[in-house]
């Protein structure tokens, strides 16, 4: 009797696990499917090679090149800038501060708090700074805001990887007479290269996909940016503006833009994974 109950229990919980897996798979497939079904017909050469023309927002000719270029400039710029700050910071807390647990934990806690702040708040903060310096909405302001917003994401993701590196590897490198900084950049960063690339990628994905932080700071424009002080369009905002249109053709282009956005993220993800594979082989495996 008892044994039978055990079987029922097992089936019940296995059922729940299976159902949740199935549920999320269905959602994912429906999401991608619906974007593709609605968006693919709107995609054309024109869509990715032209900026909006006169009647674009009434469903006439033009494309979203302004948003593609703007998004790439903005997120590549912000990712590069964030990397310059995040890599040293995460190496510093994992090598130089490694023994001082209370300090490392406080830094991690602060970064987690920053990670939790909604991107619209970063947008508002960026806007305040812009006002203070008398800047207009521009690529530069957008890059700075997005950089601030993705730094905690990048640092904490790198940190999670770096802290799993074997302690013995650090000791080995230090014993050869290298300084802590040499150990950090030449050995630890190399050991964790795949994780670091994943962290960069994750941050890039957040940067290119976020609408709220660029709303006030990067602005929106139908033109390609001529300099970093010009406002730029971004794909998420482009999707937003097109989707709010009552005209069906324009709405359909919104889905087209969504396909483009997803495709860019996918492409970069695949490429980076391919390149990081080379380095992965060199990493020390733990026994």
């Amino acid at each position: 009797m008892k044994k039978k109950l055990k079987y029922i229990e097992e089936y019940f919980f296995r059922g729940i696990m299976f159902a949740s897996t199935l549920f999320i798979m269905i959602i994912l497939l429906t999401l991608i499917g619906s974007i593709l079904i609605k968006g693919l017909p709107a995609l054309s050469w024109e869509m990715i090679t032209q900026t909006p023309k006169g009647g674009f927002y009434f469903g006439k000719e033009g494309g979203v090149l302004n948003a593609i270029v703007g998004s790439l400039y903005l997120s590549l710029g912000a990712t590069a800038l964030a990397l310059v700050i995040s890599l040293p910071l995460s190496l510093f807390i994992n090598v130089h501060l490694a023994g001082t647990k209370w300090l490392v934990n406080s830094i991690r806690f602060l970064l987690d708090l920053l990670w939790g702040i909604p991107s619209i708040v970063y947008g508002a903060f960026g806007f305040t700074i812009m006002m203070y310096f008398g800047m207009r909405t521009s690529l530069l302001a957008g890059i700075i805001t997005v950089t601030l917003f993705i730094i905690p994401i990048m640092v904490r993701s790198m940190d999670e990887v770096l802290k799993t590196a074997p302690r013995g590897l650090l000791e080995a490198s230090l014993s050869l007479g290298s300084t802590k900084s040499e150990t950090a950049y030449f050995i630890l960063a190399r050991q964790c290269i795949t994780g670091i690339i994943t962290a960069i990628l994750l941050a890039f994905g957040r940067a290119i996909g976020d609408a709220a932080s660029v709303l006030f700071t990067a602005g929106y424009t139908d033109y390609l940016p001529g300099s970093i002080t010009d406002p730029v369009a971004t794909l998420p905002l482009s999707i937003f503006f097109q989707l709010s249109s009552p005209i069906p053709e324009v709405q359909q282009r919104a889905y087209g833009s969504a396909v483009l956005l997803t495709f860019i993220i996918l492409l970069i993800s695949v490429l980076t994974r391919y390149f990081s594979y080379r380095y992965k082989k060199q990493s020390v495996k733990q026994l």
Partner: protein
Amino acid sequence: MENTTKIAISNLNCHIGNKLVLDDINVNIPERKLTVILGPSGCGKTTLLKSMNRLTDLYPEVKIDGSIVFDNEDILHPRTEIPQLRKRMGLLSQQPYPLPMSIYKNITYGLRIGGRQQKATLNGRVEQYLRQVSLWDEVKDRLHDPASALSIGQQQRLCLARGLAVDPEIILADEPTSALDPVSSKEIEELFLKLKNRYTIVVVTHILRQARRIADYIIFMYLGKIIEHGPAAEFFENPKNEMAKAYIQGLYN
């Protein structure tokens, strides 16, 4: 036969938090001899070893006082140039940690951060040190393969070669064979015997038979204290201390 002292440790105490892990250590490490620090696990052997090249600095909860004099300099002095000090003492750890790069670069890493960069010199050094650890013939055709592709035993010999390449005077080895199979362990032991004419070697081990095979000088530790130390032959044939006697008879193993 009188030995020259390479490292003189006196009144060394070490606390981790509130726990006393090294209790008034006074001992001299003889030059160009193989000294074995013997004792059961957790008796402070590794801490003693790592305090010699100040790897204990990595753990702020470890507090050390006393003096460790190495070539007339107290290395515990706050102004000691630690990277320079560590370069003079190669470390071999329990488990091999090859650097995440090729076999070739594992050997040249120490040289390159030291500033010597002539390509021909580097090639020569790589061959010289890989030969010294009898690894050259096994890897000469794949020097640019990742070091992680080697077997564990080969990795440990590579780590030894990498340490020798920066020209140390001392080799510190922390249970260097504990992750290895018997054949690889034997290779490491033979290398030590070969190298002890040129380097001062300090090996931490809890394996009695290994100590018998390789030691010139024994430091026997128990619970943070040095119970007995002296030339190996004397120690094994005629231990003065009861505890040492019991350990030798295998009562603690």
